[in-house]
Each structure stands twice: as C-alpha cells, then as structure tokens.
C-alpha cells in the first residue's frame, strides 16, 4: 500500500513537469510568430504604424483587464481546493469561465468590425493595401486567432475541472488536473500580456 502511495506521489510532480514541458512548446509556437512580427515591424515600420491605428486599444485594454482578473480567480480556485472549500473553488472557476466568455464576445465584436471593413486576409480591400499593412493584418488575425483558440481550449479544460470538483474526483488531496488547468489558463494570460502592447498599444 505504501509503495502505491509512493509512486502516486511521484505522478503528481512529474505530471506537473509534463505540463510545463508542454507550455514550453506553446511558448515557442507563439514565439515564432512574435519573431516574424518583430522582423516585419522593423522592415515595414511606416505600414505597421498606419495599420496599428485601425485597432481599438480600448477593447484591447478591456480584454487585458478581463484576462488578468480571470487569472486571479483561477489561482484563487486552486487556493480554495487546497483549503477544502470545494464550493468556493467551483464558484471561482465559474467566474473564470464567464470572464473567458466576455473576452470572446469582445473578440467577436472586434473581428466583426474588421471583417465589416473588409480588413481580413484575402479580401479585395486587403489586396489594395501596401505590403506591410497586409503583413500586419495577417499577423493580427493569426496571433489573436491562435490566442482565442487557446482561450476556448482553456475554457473547456476548466469546465472539465469544475465538473470533476463537483463529482469529488478533484479534492484537497488530488488536484493535479486542477493545477495543470490553471497553469494552462495562466499561459493564455502570459501570451496576451505580450500581444496587447505589441498589437494594440505601439503604433
């Protein structure tokens, strides 16, 4: 019995290590796009300046606050489960999911506005723009789109965590999935912390 418990204990540590290794690959997935952005920005600085003015910094800032708060609520839900407060943990994850929804709704209006202006890759208006602006909008849609996909995946992961807390399979003793789900959600926040100034603030 004690040997089983011993190997189980190692599982928790290695499970978290595995999650971090996965997060490293995520970092380089976005990192590649950041490097393309940096090089293109220095090559077409005037075009990037002009194109960035199209972005709505207010929506960007709102979504930054939304993600920062959601990062806190998910960190707090872990504190709650460690302190055996299951209901509070579920409530905090629920708030996180609502904030994820708010983020996606903002993104919907933001993208919808751009698409309404025919500013999407391959559109007729895009073809008439200078090369640097096409690059900017291409990178904008690619980076925010890939990030939004991560928001959706993170939301699904946290929903699973919430139901597992409800069924008692995640509890004060066993919360590796909860921990890893929270780590994933923080990664989504980390990526946005860089995306927001690069795309929305610097013009």
């Amino acid at each position, binding site marked *: 019995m004690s040997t089983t418990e011993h190997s189980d204990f190692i599982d928790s540590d290695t499970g978290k290590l595995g999650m*971090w290794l996965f997060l490293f690959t995520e970092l380089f997935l976005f*990192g590649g796009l950041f490097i393309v952005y940096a090089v293109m920005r220095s090559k077409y600085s005037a075009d990037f300046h002009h194109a960035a003015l199209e972005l709505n910094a207010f929506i960007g800032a709102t979504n930054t606050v939304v993600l920062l708060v959601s*990062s806190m609520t998910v960190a707090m839900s872990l504190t709650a489960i460690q302190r055996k407060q299951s209901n509070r943990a579920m409530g905090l994850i629920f708030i996180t999911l609502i904030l994820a929804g708010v983020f996606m709704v903002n993104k919907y209006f933001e993208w919808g506005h751009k698409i309404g202006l025919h500013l999407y890759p391959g559109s007729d208006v895009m073809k008439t723009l200078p090369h640097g602006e096409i690059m900017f909008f291409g990178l904008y849609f690619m980076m925010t789109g890939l990030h939004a996909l991560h928001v959706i995946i993170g939301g699904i992961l946290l929903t699973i965590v919430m139901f597992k807390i409800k069924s008692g399979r995640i509890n004060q003793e066993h919360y*590796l999935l909860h921990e890893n789900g929270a780590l994933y959600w*923080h990664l989504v926040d980390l990526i946005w912390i860089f995306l927001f100034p690069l795309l929305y603030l610097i013009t």
Partner: protein
Amino acid sequence: MKNHDDHITSYSLNWTVLIVLLILTTISILAIKMHLGAYTVALALILASVKVTIVLTYFMHLKFENLLLRLMVGGVFLLFAIVIVITFIDYYFR
C-alpha cells in the same frame, strides 16, 4: 497523486498580485500614450516582461516550486531571448 504538502497561496496575496498587474498595465498604457518615441517599444516590452515574471512567480507558483523546475523555466526563456537576438543579428547584418 497526493500533493497536499504544496504551498498554499493566500487569497490576499492573489489580490495584491492582481492590483500590481493592473497598475503596471495602466502605466504601460499611459506611457505609450505619451509618445516617448524610440523608447516606446522598449518600455512596453520591459513592462510586459515584468508582468510576465510576476504571473510566473506568484500565479503559476514558481516561487514555491523546486529548483529543477525554476531552472528549466529560466533556461527556456533565456533560450527564447537568444533565438530573438540571433534572428535580429542575422537580419541586420545580412
């Protein structure tokens, strides 16, 4: 899967971290609106790096993790920085 000997971050620390992050966000928005010219990009990236470090340290509990994990995370970010620097060296001197 017993991990109840982990460090528990208090609710008040989580609040403090959020407030610091929101203050840093406000500073970066205000700083960029002031148009500091060539330093704008550098300042934005420095503030973003500070925020990322805070999230990694407190929200992602790296402060309370073992040395191996902390070294790995540090190493990966160093590797990423090297990749960016080498890309720019290649780009500017080609």
